[in-house]
């Protein structure tokens, strides 16, 4: 278990590119062991002792281009294992640490991107950072007593009700809003602190929608679990379903047939297209431009009908399956109908970009500083609108090694769209740029060939990490399967989980109440993805 150096054991293939740098950052630290397990080239697992965790976190958080993508825990019998997922453009590094006792090093002091996860882990597993700083209630409702079902052990002390401390100076007051909000939107509770018009502070509660999906997946077989995984955040059904399937495939050491992998990628781009159209409609609604909203909704409806005609479901449910895809697209329909539907969206976008009354509401609204986006570990168009060029599609290392047979993006590189300024307008521009790239990518993938088909799942177990780039950002799924192939732990982390924590910052200071729906539309997250 302990070693003073980190030479990679000869049996493990040398990791490629920048990821090697990540692993090398940890050289010289004691208490490390590279796990031979996990067939995914794109993800390396390192087991480390608790004593090394703080130093390792410093090293990785301090490396430019590296970010903390997720943190979660697991209860295997009595011991609680803490897992961190670090990412850079070439791949993922998982660290695995057994925590004895009730606490672990204060990681969010080093990597602020870990704060929300620390709260969740305390709620579910009873272990907390050693500094004892206040942690917020996250998933479990206020009435959740000591016997309320958790993924692990209950915390020794009840959670604090405190949200992030803020100074309410002068005449500012707190204004609770929700969870039942305007018509046709998800339930969400905001605590709004205001001095009248300006947003002094904003905090969110999503526990009203917490369905306990990670707990429900325990004991399930992957094929049954994917049905629920798709419905964690239905607007990202392809992204979450694919990440889940990829995690199970990595755990079992298989890859989907290449044509099936390309089918997944086509479906994912169709999902990105309709989501960005829906976000455009929501932006128009939030700014009061009803004609724009109607025009965008016409485009959205056309895109959903393309999905139904090509793949049999408006929201692309039931396409991804473990080992591949259950359905192939109707290529004729797709080639015939998609250009017209996209053209509709493009014309709306062009008209919006020349409508000054609309653009004025977007510019300089909801500014999120690039440094803050980086510190909080944000993903997706929100991060890219701050100039951070991250996208899970860039990581093409699949489960079968160098040739990346599993990744459909090998040979079909994705152009990443970024913008500067971090305001609503920048996020809107990123989304528009991405729709153009999605249409181009779909065309290329159809040319290369798509088909239905699944690689059969072999018996046995293992653990693996899967990842996709949903319309709202990177989705990560980690699964552990026992020898019967049943799930012992499924970690589902849609993009919304990463990005809601940036929403409060984007809403503060210069913004007024009426800006909040505009900022919310520009983030285009879901409560369901957070409250799974």
């Amino acid at each position, binding site marked *: 278990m302990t070693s003073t150096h980190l030479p990679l054991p000869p049996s493990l293939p040398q990791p490629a590119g920048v990821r090697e740098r990540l692993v090398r950052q940890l050289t010289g630290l004691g208490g490390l062991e590279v796990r031979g397990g996990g067939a995914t080239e794109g993800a390396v697992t390192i087991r480390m002792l608790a004593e090394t965790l703080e130093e390792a976190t410093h090293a990785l958080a301090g490396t430019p281009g590296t970010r903390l993508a997720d943190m979660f825990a697991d209860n295997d019998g009595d011991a609680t294992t803490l897992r961190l997922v670090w990412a850079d453009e070439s791949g993922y590094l998982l660290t695995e640490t057994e925590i004895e006792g009730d606490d672990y090093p204060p990681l969010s002091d080093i990597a602020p991107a870990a704060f929300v996860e620390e709260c969740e882990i305390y709620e579910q597993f009873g272990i907390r950072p050693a500094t004892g700083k206040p942690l917020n209630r996250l998933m479990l409702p206020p009435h959740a007593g000591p016997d309320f079902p958790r993924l692990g052990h209950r915390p020794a002390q009840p959670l604090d009700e405190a949200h992030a401390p803020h100074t309410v100076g002068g005449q500012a007051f707190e204004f609770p809003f929700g969870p039942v909000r305007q018509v046709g939107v998800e339930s969400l509770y905001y605590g709004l602190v205001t001095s009248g018009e300006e947003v002094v502070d904003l905090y969110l509660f999503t526990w009203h929608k917490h369905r306990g999906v990670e707990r429900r997946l325990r004991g399930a077989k992957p094929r049954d679990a994917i049905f629920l995984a798709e419905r964690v955040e239905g607007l990202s059904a392809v992204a979450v379903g694919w990440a889940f399937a990829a995690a199970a495939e990595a755990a079992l050491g298989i890859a989907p047939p290449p044509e099936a992998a390309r089918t997944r990628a086509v479906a994912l781009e169709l999902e990105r297209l309709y989501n960005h159209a829906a976000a455009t409609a929501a932006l128009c609604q939030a700014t009061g431009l009803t004609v724009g909203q109607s025009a965008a909704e016409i485009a959205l409806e056309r895109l959903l009908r393309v999905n139904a005609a090509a793949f049999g479901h408006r929201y692309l449910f039931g396409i991804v399956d473990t080992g591949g895809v259950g359905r192939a697209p109707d290529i004729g329909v797709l080639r015939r109908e998609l250009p017209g539907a996209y053209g509709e969206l493009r014309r709306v976008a062009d008209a919006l970009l020349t409508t000054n009354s609309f653009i004025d509401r977007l510019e300089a609204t909801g500014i999120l500083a690039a440094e803050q986006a980086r510190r909080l570990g944000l993903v997706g168009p929100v991060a890219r609108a701050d100039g951070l060029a991250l996208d899970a599609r860039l990581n093409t290392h699949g489960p079968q090694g160098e040739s990346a047979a599993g990744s459909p993006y090998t040979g079909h590189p994705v152009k990443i769209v970024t913008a500067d300024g971090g305001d609503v307008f920048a996020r809107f521009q990123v989304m528009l740029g991405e729709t153009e790239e999605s249409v181009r990518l779909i065309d290329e993938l159809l040319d290369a060939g798509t088909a239905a088909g699944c690689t059969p799942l072999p018996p046995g177990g293992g653990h693996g990490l899967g990842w996709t780039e949903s319309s709202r950002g990177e989705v990560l799924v980690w699964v552990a399967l026992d020898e019967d192939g049943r799930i012992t732990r499924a970690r589902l982390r849609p993009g919304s989980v990463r990005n809601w924590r940036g929403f409060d910052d984007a809403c503060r200071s210069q913004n007024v109440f009426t800006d909040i729906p505009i900022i919310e539309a520009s983030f285009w997250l879901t409560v369901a*993805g957070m409250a799974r």
Partner: protein
Amino acid sequence: MTPEQDEAEAARQVRERIAGQFGRSLHIRTLDTGSCAVCEQEIRLLTAPHYDLQRLGFFFTPAPRHADLLLVTGPMVRAFDVAARKTYEAMPGPKVVVATGACALGGVYRPDAFVHGEVSAVLPVDVWIPGCPPSPLALLQGLSVAVGRLTEKITGLTFTADNASSGGAG
């Protein structure tokens, strides 16, 4: 009367009452009890140009006080019970509750410590609309049935097909 006959009689009375009162203009309030967000997207499209529910005399209202019909999605997460009941009780009678989507009807989530599994565990449901998600057309049919404008088809469908032919319901 048998329980089935009781239920059918109650349903008939609901239909008559609704048709008499809401036939011309209906105000709808939506309620999300834990959905995956897709049902909400289909509901939002009801006001979009392709569907335009206002041409049928249906309107959305943000205020429960002005609403006649509560359109409910999601499997009724237990932590949401209080909010659900308060929304329902804030609506003055007469009122109709429509549960929409497989989650709200008892599919997808079996009851456990986190969810009831169906809307009818907490609210008295009058009309059920299946689907995952119910498309805007299915929602329009459901709302029209709820106000007595359309007769429901479901009682006549058997979901059987000929042994030889392909497609079609009995």
